[in-house]
Structures are given as structure tokens and as C-alpha cells.
């Protein structure tokens, strides 16, 4: 089967130094792929590279048949990739509702169903939909960020540590949402530090370390790998 997103031999970084060194990965339609690895391994950088937010010096990226290596971010969004960054992932001065509105910026027509869906997922947000997102708690912000991404109907969802700072209850819920979303035909690529949980429910996983591919395989295989467990999953 042809991959939905594929990164081939990507090399690049911020400024002069290369952070990513020959990184290759791919995501097929209908699958959840997890990236794990130590802090500073380049996981977030790999995600940003999809949107051209850094200098790419080698390799290329294909999405759904198009070479998107040098596309403008807003065009990529239009093409069907949605991204939740790890930090700075909300509009602080806008209300929760407006954040969601911005998520649906490209969508035409009536969005009330989409709002309804988000608010049922995160009832906390509904109560305070006019609060500026910047005054929310860490976990609530994460919900807003997820909500914003879910407003669009993307083909591929990139999530950078979606569960960081969320309570165990919501963490479970996020993973559940991911599965639900996948079942509606959206592929998901996510970075997680809750690596065990993530690999347990992902279809496939990659381990990145020091900017390079280290391991890859199905979630279960990686979990079973002793070296991976010791080095990256906390024993």
C-alpha cells in the first residue's frame, strides 16, 4: 500500500546545525504511528519539518502523492494535515471558542456540529467557552489545542505530546479519541513520552535518538525489545 505521508532521508535543522540526520518514516492511511525517544532526540523537529518550519537540507517529503517539501504551511493545512505543536499551541488572547473557530478557519458552512463534538469530548471547555485560553490551566490548554485540531477534517493528524499535563482520565480519553478518529479514516502520527501506553495502542512505532532512526516496528515488538525498554521507556 502506498504511504499517506512519507519522509525520506530527511536532513535539516534550525540555522546551520543539523538536528535531523537522515530520518525516514512513513504513515499509512488508517494507522496510528507513535514516535518515542529521549528528550532532545528530534521528535518535535521531525514533526515541524512536515510544515517546513525549519531548514531542510536533504531528503524529501511526500503526502498523498504530492511532494510537499517546500510548500507553505497554510497550503499544507489545506491539503489535509493538521498539527498540534508541543508548545505554544493555543491562541492565548482569544477565547476558547475562538480558538476552535480558528481551527475551523478553512471550513465553510455550518460548524455547529463540529463545536458540539468538541464540547462533548471536553465538557470543561464548554462551561468556560468565553475564557481567554491564556488563563487556562496547563491541562485545559492541551484540551483546547486538541480541540482546535479536531475542528478540521484532516487526512492526517500530527500530535506532539497530546497527553502531557493531562490527568490520567483525560489521557485515556485522548488515546480513545485517537482510536476513534483513526477509525473514521484519519491517520495519526504522534509523539509521546507516555511511551508504554502509546506504543501499546499505536499500530507502529519509531524510536528516534540523537536525530536518527534507531528502531522501528509494530508497537508490541518495540515494547518487547529489551534495549528499547531500558534506554527509552524507563525500564
Amino acid at each position, binding site marked *: 500500500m502506498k504511504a499517506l505521508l512519507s519522509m525520506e532521508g530527511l536532513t535539516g535543522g534550525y540555522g546551520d546545525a543539523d538536528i535531523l540526520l537522515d530520518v525516514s518514516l512513513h504513515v499509512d492511511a488508517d494507522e496510528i504511528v507513535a514516535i518515542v525517544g529521549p528528550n532532545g532526540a528530534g521528535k518535535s523537529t521531525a514533526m515541524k519539518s512536515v510544515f517546513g518550519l525549519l531548514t531542510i537540507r536533504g531528503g524529501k517529503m511526500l503526502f498523498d502523492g504530492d511532494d510537499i517539501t517546500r510548500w507553505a504551511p497554510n497550503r499544507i493545512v489545506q491539503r489535509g494535515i493538521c498539527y498540534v505543536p508541543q508548545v505554544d499551541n493555543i491562541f492565548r488572547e482569544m477565547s476558547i471558542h475562538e480558538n476552535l473557530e480558528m481551527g475551523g478557519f478553512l471550513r465553510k458552512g455550518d460548524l455547529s456540529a463540529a463545536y458540539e463534538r468538541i464540547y462533548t469530548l471536553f465538557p470543561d471547555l464548554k462551561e468556560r467557552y468565553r475564557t481567554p485560553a491564556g488563563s487556562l490551566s496547563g491541562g485545559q490548554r492541551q484540551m483546547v489545542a486538541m480541540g482546535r485540531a479536531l475542528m478540521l477534517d484532516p487526512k492526517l493528524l500530527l500530535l506532539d505530546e497530546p497527553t502531557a499535563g493531562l490527568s490520567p482520565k483525560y489521557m485515556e*480519553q485522548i488515546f480513545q479519541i485517537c482510536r476513534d478518529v483513526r477509525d473514521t479514516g484519519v491517520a495519526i502520527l504522534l509523539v509521546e513520552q507516555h511511551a508504554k501506553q502509546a506504543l501499546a495502542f499505536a499500530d507502529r512505532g519509531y524510536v528516534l535518538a540523537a536525530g536518527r532512526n534507531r528502531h522501528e516496528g509494530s508497537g508490541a515488538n518495540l515494547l518487547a525489545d529489551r534495549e528499547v525498554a531500558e534506554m527509552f521507556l524507563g525500564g
Partner: protein
Amino acid sequence: MLELDQLVMDFGKFRAVNNCSFRVGEGSITGLIGPNGAGKTTLFNLIAGAFHPSSGSIRFLGEDVTGLASHQLFHKGLVRTFQIPHEFHKLTALENLMMVPPSQPGESLFSNWFAWRKVSSAERDVERQAYEALDFLELTHVAHEPAGNLSGGQKKLLELGRTMMTDAKLVLLDEPAAGVNRTLLRKLETKIEILNRDRGYTFILIEHDMEMIEKLCAPVICMAEGRVLIEGDFQTVRSNPQVLEAYLGETTGDVA
């Protein structure tokens, strides 16, 4: 060591902390858990002097410290980390740590101009200490990188590193584990235990990682909607039905 009495914090009409009272014993590691938006971080902000409580009082080491500014509290021995990293983004990682120790001679214009020797010898000590912290946090290779360029997890580690740079009596840690690699996290847990046992630091720890709470904390306080829901040891708190419902989720209490 720390006593909170009927603390209330209002943001406009919204009450984020509602009549919170509890005590933290000297030498303990208190765990603070609760659903998102329960008011945990706000409570930290109150204790650390970043916000002024709408009402209620805070006593620290037997002294009423309500309304003191954060820098004054710091000098009394209270250090905190931020949930959302507040790194100094243009300073290097090393400098982020080196700026922490209080009352450095080089912070006065006079000694910089007229007592340079004293300043530079103090600098060497601070630098050594900072490198030790970086080594421990596996950040040595980015010591000279501006902190703004660090990865999300590295910034969190740097936050934690700052608390290692001063002789604190009470350390407030706000979700130190979020975004930190699990292998490294196990190391951090050990470090916290050591600091607690050997150096006598008292900790209050906000976490959503139950494994870490279980391993380190006694007692555990669970907050919800600005109030203290229950206080007790980990097992008691975890098996409380309200906690299960509001926080851990009905399906599973064990996420490990």
C-alpha cells in the same frame, strides 16, 4: 512547615481556589493531584507569592508570609518550578542555572567595579555547581545553547535544574514529569528522594503520573474544583470513589 488557612483565589467571577487549608510537614514529600483545572497550579502561585490570595493566609516556617513578593519568599527558602516552562530564552542553559544562586557578589555594581576578584571566584563555584546539575539532567551537550532553542522536555528539565542550584527548604514542583522521558524520570525520582533524605528538603509535587506519586509521596492531597477533596496516603486517595470518578477515570485506576 507550611500552613495554608482558608485560602481563596478569585479571577473575576471565577473562583479557582476555594477555601483551601492544609499543612505540609517538615521533611515530607507531599503529592498534589487533581483533575485539570482543579486549582493546583494556582495554589502554587499563591504559595510562591506570584498571586495575592483574595482571602486567607499562608504561614511558612511559623511566619505569616501572605502577600510577600516571590523574590522575598525565595530568600526565605522557597523555590518553585513552572508547569509551563519559564526559561530565560536568550540565556544559555548554563546561565539559566548560574543566575539562580541568591546574593551573588557580582550582582552589585560596586563589587563588579571594585572587587572583581571576589566576583570571579564566586563565579567559578557557581559554574561548577551548574555543570553538575546539567550533567545530572543529561543536558551538558546543550549547556551553551540558548535555552529558547531547547526541546520541550529539555526546558522542563532545566526548570527542575534551577531548584538544584540553591539551598531551598521547600521546593514546589509543578508537573516535573510531563514531557520528560521515562528513563530519565526514574533518575529524577531518585534524586528527589536523595535531596529529601540527605539534605532535608521538603517537597510539594504536582503530578499526573501516578507511578511517580506512588513511589515518592506521602501524604497525597487530591484537589477538585479549588477544594481539597481528600488527604491521605496514596492507597487511600486512589481508592476513593470521588477521586476515581473525577480524576483517574472509571475504567482504570492503574495507568502504569
